[in-house]
């Protein structure tokens, strides 16, 4: 299955600082829940482990992240990722285009468009939850990022916390909330 995810968020930090972090795979991985940086393989390629739990399925992906292009001037980065489940239960690939723009007043806007292709168990059983899981991952990611950037990087190397797999219960609850939230929105809009 293919999932397309587009996200935009603002962060209270200058563009140069955000760009510096976002182009450093090691630092960025530390902000992604369930991700663990493994090693720099040279040639802009990095090996990363990622643990994701969707419903009853816990998948560990061993992946390779490579920076396809980096536009220093306009602050646009293109990243390719591919990973296979360490137990042979499937795999995923990702193409991401990220850009950072200065919003003045010391904040930066980060925009990310990604296409994720998933094969295997996760695609079969998680299809209805993947969007909610991604949202949840994203929220945790931006929170970590904000903490790192706005909190002067004091948690930058706190790998333990960040590397914990996203808890299944937390995702399930968040997903349920997401579904109910949308239902409530629909009900509200119907009333109006």
């Amino acid at each position: 299955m293919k999932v397309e995810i587009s996200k935009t968020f603002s962060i209270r930090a200058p563009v140069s600082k955000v760009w510096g972090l976002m182009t450093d795979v090691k630092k960025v991985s530390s902000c992604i829940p369930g991700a663990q940086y493994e090693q720099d393989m040279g040639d802009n390629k990095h090996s990363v482990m990622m643990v994701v739990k969707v419903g009853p399925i816990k998948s560990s992906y061993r992946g390779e992240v490579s920076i396809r292009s980096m536009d220093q001037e306009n602050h646009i980065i293109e990243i390719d990722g591919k990973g296979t489940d360490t137990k042979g239960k499937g795999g995923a690939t990702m193409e991401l285009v990220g850009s950072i723009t200065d919003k003045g007043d010391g904040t930066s806007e980060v925009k990310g468009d990604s296409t994720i292709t998933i094969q295997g168990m996760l695609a079969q059983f998680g299809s209805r939850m993947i969007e909610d899981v991604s949202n949840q991952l994203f929220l945790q990611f931006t929170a970590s990022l904000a903490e790192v950037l706005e909190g002067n990087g004091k948690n930058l190397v706190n790998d333990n916390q960040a590397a914990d797999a996203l808890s299944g219960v937390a995702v399930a609850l968040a997903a349920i909330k997401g579904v109910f939230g949308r239902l409530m929105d629909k009900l509200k809009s119907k009333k109006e």
Partner: protein
Amino acid sequence: MSKCKTSPEVGGMGHSIKRKEDPRFIRGQGNYVDDVVRPGMVFMDIVRSPYAHAKIKSINTEKALAHPGVAAVITGETLKEYNLHMMPTLMSDTQMVLPIDKVCYQAQEVAAVVATDRYSAADGVELVEVEYEPLPVVVDPHKATEPDAPIIRDDKEGQENNHIFHWEAGDKAETEEIFNNADVTVKEDIYLPRIHVASIETCGCISEFDSVTGRLTVWLTTQAPHAIRTVVALVAGHVGLQEDKIRIISPDIGGGFGGKVPVYPGYVIAIAASVVTGLPIKWIEDRRENLQADSFARDYHMTCEIAADKDGTLNGLRIKTLADHGYADAAANPSKFPAGMFSICTGSYDFKKAFVEVDGVYTNKPPGGIAYRCSFRVTEAVHAIERMVDVVADEIGMDAAEIRMNNFIPKDAFPYQSPMGWEYDSGDYHGALKLAMDKIGYDELLKEQAEKREKGELMGIGISSFTEVVGAGPSKDFDILGIKMFDSSEIRIHPTGKVIARFGTKSQGQGHETTYAQIIAEELGIPHSDVTVEEGDTDTAPYGLGTYASRSTPTAGAAAAVACRKIKDKSQKIAAHLLEVAEEDLEWEVGKFSVKGVPDKSVTIQEVAFAAYTNHPQGLEAGLEATHYYDPPNMTYPFGSYIAVVDIDPDTGEVKIRRFVAIDDCGNIINPMIVEGQIHGGLTQGLAPALFEEISYDDEGNITGGSFMEYLVPTAVETPHWETDKTITPSPHHPLGAKGVGESPTVGAPPAIANAVVDALSHLGVRHIDIPITPEKVWRAIHKQNAA
């Protein structure tokens, strides 16, 4: 049949005898494969591929083998040592049992774990580590035929594309001629989606090899135990499994519907593992494995055309089909019919000429496809023709009933030679449709529909006047792997007049224990309650090709009747001896012979049976038994007319079936209650693909309909009230005048429902919607048209 020949106590044909098998079923005392427990039995579970197409780089079994409960891990390499890693399909294609270097569909078997208990086997499966390298996936059969498509079967020598077979029937040139000169031509792309039988019992087996006697016994979920025995002997003869050493036992079966005809890799792995280990091995699929890896049905992409006169006379029919067979052609058709009986597609109508062609292609999906409650692609054919007749009616503005009535093969034209070469044995299509229209109040419904349209309400009426071709089949045309498609009955009358009767078929819920007993009761006058019916054990039952394609009554049922007549002939000799008269002085009335003109002087069949063992005439062989292998002279052609009335919610697209009238004609009826039960079940299995069921795949070959969460099997909640009735047009060639009924409703119902939905939307310009007709499809059809 208006009157029964026998009393209710004897219970011959026409009596609604309660099913003999039901007391054990409703008490939970059936004996299914998973109920069988053997001493020292171990358990098998299967590692399956997450990829639809991938190279296998490595399989690491170390961690699995370290698990305390795991006894063995079997891979393709293990089986290759015995040359059992590949197996033939029923269509003479080949199929992996376990892969050596690549997988070709998601959920394909990759390795098997044998463990001391079921839980350890599952744990072992989790511990097997397989490294894959994904390959490009071909999901869409149209794309599979493109020149640059990845070749899926690169293992087959000379296979340079994904094409499997081309098959055609009818006259191409003459059909084209009709199209060139036609007043009206219509064309529609119709897709019959991939569906699954979803029987309540999944597939599985217990394989037990006795290393002392060299005998293999397999308890197997199969509809065709004898054929399986022969296949096992052919596939595994080289490792010492000759046919006399193989015993297949098919115990109670919880629904087959064609899904339990093929040989699945799991069976072969379990058999190989038990031969190697000498242990009884149980393998039972779980629900997901069953839905995802077992053989599917349908998956026909049909481009259909009809040429007609302005007045609606149907002249020419042309259908071009792309058949998606998945990774291997593992269909279960008779050998000479790679597209089954698809050429029955001229249906109930008197077409002048027709031409059909079918191209089978490989895709990265599980192999198939089987005849799901359908006599080999008849469902596809009937859906195409019944939808297309409505398309013609829509084009020329004619009523759907009228166009059918005007084009039906007339009653006096039987036996009728179809332009495709079938000889329809009998039919009265006008009678069945007329009865359906009267029963549902067709004219009133048309008025109501017109009124509702005025008010913007959506209501539709759909007709399906189908013809089936069942009972495969005459040996001159029909075989599976060379074995002719006869079937058999062996009847033994014990000295006390009780009977054991064995058959080459295998009931999966059809009620054979009851109906076969009724045939014997009808023929010999022995009460049905005195008859024990046995099937499914290849050591005891006579050879037969099994139960599918509505063939049991047309073949084994006929065999029973003929065997009874052999017994009756011998009985007459014994009766003459007992009554001390000449044979020709005797006359038969149900259950006894009496001297012509002296009705008091008679002997019962039970007295004859006793004499056959105690006082048989000199020169006559003792005992009273007969076996018959029945080779049908022709297929039988059950038919019917169904009318569905639907109401559609324009806001949600939800389809509600308000009424459904089903008129079936299956010839003479053995047990009316069982026939009605078959029709109710079949209609529900026709409703299923019409509105709910589809095994769908995404572009990467991931199954998106692989559990009961997504694969919507209708329950009692979704099922409407079925109104059934019948006409009776006996088969002229079947010894009992019967035709077979199990599949008619599954075949006939989907187009009736689809036609009703399209009819409800036809004034909006909608001419066709592919099944399953989900609320989304209806909503989109309504809104697309509104926007236009």
